């Protein structure tokens, strides 16, 4: 098994609301990402997947956020690092790409300047021409046909797919060991989406980069990930290798998610959906947070929050009654 790059233990992220009121967006999640592995982090909007990734990078505002737990990256405890030490890791050893490529690039800065900023920040002592050469190489790596021209462009002169390629090029320009991709394909159309995913796989294969892919799209997960983590309302509810998860989902929520994806060639009268919606962060149900929406819920589900337990090889689930779910499935 490959070395563990990122180890998150019991991560809890709270946001300040009002004077003394804190709301919990991520409620103690633990997971790992290994080198050369693409891990999918899935869940509905508001389940805490983006908050988790931003907490790992420590990109939340210090003034209204409280992050506890442990984040270990190659033996370094990220939550305990000083801000300048963290800056050396960001963009250098852990990079991030975001959902809206058009707005994630500075609109009034040329692409070259934005790339240069990242490269020269983490590689001091490179000459101007060396930095330029690395910019060109970074764009070539992501399959941009005319790098010299693109470097002179402003973001508004590029398409969304091109912007996302530039974002990936920027993220990869310092050859990070871990890439966090927060919904990288959500804002792109399907053909571009496939290209971007292929590009991320290619980067993983060539550089042995660990990738944490955050998405709400199970299709994307099935296509690219080797392992999947399912989050619901700030908790991890299930974690399994991708094939196992799709073939043999244990948690009722995972099952519901998979069933609600339409499939070609399968006739259904009405697409099954999960009733209700994600609970509000300030009004979390007691016990299992999925219980109010769960078809298999029992009275004892509301008593206490179920723990994530091993249910098979590499397969963890946070539902003590998963056996019933499987039987009926």
């Amino acid at each position, binding site marked *: 098994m490959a070395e563990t790059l990122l180890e998150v233990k019991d991560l809890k992220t709270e946001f300040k609301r009002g004077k003394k009121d804190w709301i919990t967006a991520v409620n103690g999640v633990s997971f790992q990402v290994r080198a050369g592995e693409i891990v999918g982090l899935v869940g509905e909007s508001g389940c805490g997947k983006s908050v988790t990734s931003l907490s790992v990078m420590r*990109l939340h505002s210090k003034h209204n956020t409280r992050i506890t737990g442990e984040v270990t990256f190659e033996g370094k405890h990220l939550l305990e690092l000083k801000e300048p030490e963290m800056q050396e890791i960001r*963009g250098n050893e852990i990079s991030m790409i975001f959902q809206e490529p058009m707005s994630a690039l500075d609109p009034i800065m040329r692409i070259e300047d934005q790339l240069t900023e990242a490269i020269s920040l983490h590689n001091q002592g490179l000459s101007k021409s060396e930095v330029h050469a690395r910019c060109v190489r970074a764009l070539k790596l992501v399959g941009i046909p005319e790098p010299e021209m693109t470097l002179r462009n402003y973001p508004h002169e590029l398409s969304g797919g091109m912007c996302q390629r530039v974002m990936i090029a920027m993220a990869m320009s310092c050859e990070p060991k871990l890439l966090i991709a927060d919904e990288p394909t959500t804002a792109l159309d399907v053909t571009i989406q496939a290209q971007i995913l292929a590009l991320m796989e290619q980067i993983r294969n060539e550089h042995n980069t660990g990738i944490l892919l955050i998405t709400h799209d199970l299709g994307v997960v099935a296509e690219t990930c080797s392992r999947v983590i399912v989050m619901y309302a700030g908790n991890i509810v299930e974690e399994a290798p991708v094939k196992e998860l799709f073939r043999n989902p244990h948690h009722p929520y995972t099952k519901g998610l998979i069933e609600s994806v339409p499939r070609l060639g399968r006739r259904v009268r009405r697409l099954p959906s999960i009733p209700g919606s994600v609970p509000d962060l300030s009004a979390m149900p007691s016990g299992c947070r999925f219980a109010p929406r769960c078809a298999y819920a029992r009275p004892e589900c509301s008593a206490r929050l179920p723990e994530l337990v091993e249910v098979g090889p590499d397969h963890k689930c946070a539902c003590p009654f998963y056996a019933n779910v499987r039987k009926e499935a």
Partner: protein
Amino acid sequence: MGKYILKRVLSMIPLLFVVSILVFLFIHLIPGDAARQVAGATATAGEVEAVRKQLGLDQPLIPQYIQWITGIFHGDLGISYTNNTTVAELFAPRLPITIYLTICSITWSVLIGIVIGVVAAINRGRTLDMLGMLIAIAGISLPNFWLGLQLMQIFSVNLGLLPTGGLEDWRGYILPSLAMGAGIMAILARVTRSSMIENLGKDYVRTARAKGLPESRVIMAHAFKNSSIDIITVTALQIGALIAGSVVVETVFSIPGLGRLLVDSIGFRDYEVIQALILFFSFEYMVINLIADVLYALINPRVRYE
């Protein structure tokens, strides 16, 4: 870029033409007979007619306009009948004073306004923010003539540090430019703050942080650079208020500048001086807006091709 500037300069010509027509018609628009004003209250009807002829006011409008505008192109801005000199001679000592005062006011108010705005945005919701916005509210609410008088009371009368008026040396400029710039400083502080807060929440700022840039660089090179687009726009819009402010403040501090000249000329109905001053202020406004537009295009690549 050169093409854009040229286009922008050329577009000033029709605007100046329209302004010159309005300024020219001004002499016919305001109540009262210009020829009688010039001739004086005791003049006979015959004397008034003679003055009318001398001023060319008996001719049709178009020849009058052509004569006037040709004169202006030759540097002949008209004659001040009250002072018995040419308008150009009246302008010569006053123009540098007003320009210097304007530059002083803009410089300090823009710098301080931006600093207050940025500091407030970074410390949003905390003491420094509150303090900054308190200063801004005060700057917007206090009328500049009142502020001028208060500054005079405190620094000149009570403390005796600065002169109450006049321009013996550079210290004479301090209080007037403080009074003139306070409003702009306040508006800029507020605009900078809200623009910075907006930009600091943008995705590209998060990207900049995710790259590992130090916070100071994230704020200056990304958020502030984007905010400067808003700041330039608002500054240019405030120039009108600044010119109006110079009229009041020069009067309060008895500074012999163009603003004071305007007030005096209006009092004496010295038409040709008023005309020349309005033309000058319009021109000043246009030039400053031109500079703002060029800066705007330099910073914002999205407007250059439009």
